[in-house]
């Protein structure tokens, strides 16, 4: 049987399937569906220092095979999340990744410091790419210099491996990935959602109060796969790929272009036990294609 383990350099995951931030709650919500220990890791929904109410409704808009969201990172704040993580630890041994957010660089560093100090947390993912915090979708990951500064500052505060989550809305995502690498990131993950717009023709205004929203789901997969491929060729640190994954084959596509692991997002909403199916499909697909382990195909795209 094929070996599914995913080597990130600084650690090895049981398999390449990680559940994506904002699409998996705080893990607990999925306990009725399956044993989280089967996963490579889970990423918590993005967290700020203090509680946040989120954006006014509507917060969702469905598009063909896609989903636009403007949730606005609603959440209970870092104190409450610490409690939730401790509670979760009693129920699963799956590696927990905290998705760290901030209104400014100081808050990013502070929140990263808080969760770096928790034994129950395996690593941190720096969410410098959420399009739903500032109006117009601005975020640090649009700018290589800002990314470098911020990642360096956060690295000084923490002892845990740091994944930096990149935005597909950056003019030059490769430059931003390289800036993160240079500043000491242990890995990069991409993509966060693509900025999109949906309008209400009758009212002649955007569907969303913030005007723009973030697109996810199968609709974005070819766009995301291209960006992951480009970044993989230009950085040495491991890359975690995501965007529109719904099957085992999709996962192997991302590995083929160079990803070391993947995250699955929107699929969790409409198929709560999707990860179980997807891990099974990776196994079956690798056996069928006679692939013994993921390193055999990782980055092997002929182009």
């Amino acid at each position, binding site marked *: 049987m094929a070996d599914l383990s995913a080597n990130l350099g600084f650690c090895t995951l049981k398999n390449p399937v990680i559940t994506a931030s904002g699409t998996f709650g705080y893990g607990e919500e999925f306990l009725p569906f399956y044993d989280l220990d089967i996963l490579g890791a889970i990423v918590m929904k993005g967290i700020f220092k203090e509680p946040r109410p989120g954006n006014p*409704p509507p*917060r969702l808009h469905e598009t063909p*095979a896609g989903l636009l969201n403007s949730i606005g990172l*609603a959440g209970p704040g870092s104190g409450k999340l610490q409690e939730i993580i401790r509670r979760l630890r009693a129920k699963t041994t799956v590696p927990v990744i905290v998705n760290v957010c901030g209104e400014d660089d100081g808050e990013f560093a502070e929140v990263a410091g808080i969760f770096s100090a928790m034994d129950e947390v395996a690593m941190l993912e720096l969410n410098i790419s959420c399009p739903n915090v500032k109006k117009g979708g601005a975020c640090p990951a649009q700018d290589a210099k800002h990314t470098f500064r911020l990642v360096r500052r956060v690295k000084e505060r923490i002892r845990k491996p740091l994944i930096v989550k990149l935005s597909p809305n950056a003019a030059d995502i490769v430059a931003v990935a390289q800036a993160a690498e240079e500043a000491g990131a242990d890995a990069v993950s991409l993509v966060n959602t693509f900025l999109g717009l949906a309008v209400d023709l009758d009212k002649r205004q955007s569907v969303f109060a913030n005007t723009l929203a973030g697109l996810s789901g199968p609709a974005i997969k070819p766009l995301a796969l291209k960006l992951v491929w480009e970044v993989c060729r230009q950085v040495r640190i491991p890359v975690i790929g995501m965007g529109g994954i719904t099957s085992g084959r999709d996962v192997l596509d991302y590995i083929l272009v160079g990803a070391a692991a993947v995250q699955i997002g929107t699929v969790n909403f409409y198929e709560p036990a999707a990860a179980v199916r997807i891990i099974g499909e990776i196994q079956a697909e690798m056996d069928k294609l006679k692939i013994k382990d993921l390193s055999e195909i990782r980055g092997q795209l002929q182009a």
Partner: protein
Amino acid sequence: MLDERGLIEEARSLDGGYYQLKIAAPRIAAAAKPGNFVMVRVSPSLDPLLRRPFGILESRPPHIWLYYQVLGRGTRLLSALGHGDSLDILGPLGNSFAEMPGKRVLLIAGGRGIVPLFHYAQAYAGRQPLFMLYGGRGRADLPLLDRIKALPLRGLFIFSEDGSIGQKGLLTDGLEKIVRTERPDITLSCGPEAMLARLARMLKPEKTENHASLEALMGCGFGVCHGCAVQTVAGSYRKVCDEGPVFPLEEIRWPT
């Protein structure tokens, strides 16, 4: 809460663009309470991507019944399914309308809002004094009327906007009088947002305890996407899927 493959045993089209499905889903049926809802994957394809929420009209294990109106793509695809087709159904979800032994309860249903209240009436009529105020645009909008008449209700009041059945007008036109004569302790309501907003202005919490079941756009139905937020009068947001769908009527900030 579980994700169960349900088997459609009967699909009926009713008046007014409504449809009714009888689905074998033994585990969901066994756990469903009046007010709960389910998330249905209307197609195995990736478009439409998200499941659609529907109330549970009736549950008699091993079956549940859904009753829905065709609005857009998802419900149109659902209406094309028939006997022998299967559907992924997540449920039962959300909170429920509690049984209130000994209390006089007025059920207020507008259009498809009848769904959770029919379930309630069927489960508890005969065990407690129930009254129902049911309204729609016209006769075709109330295709469940014959079945409702067969329930042991203490009183049934029908309104239609076009006067084709019952009294002519909005159901809220009859509300004050019914509250005066039937003296309910509690009202349970479900229907269009404008109707619930009107109820919130008319019903006084000192006189009746008021609970309403809400609708919202839903991404997941089990609390993880935060897409279904509704604003409270205090200004905070609540998730309709797992903190509701039933809320105290006074707690919600209704459009004016």
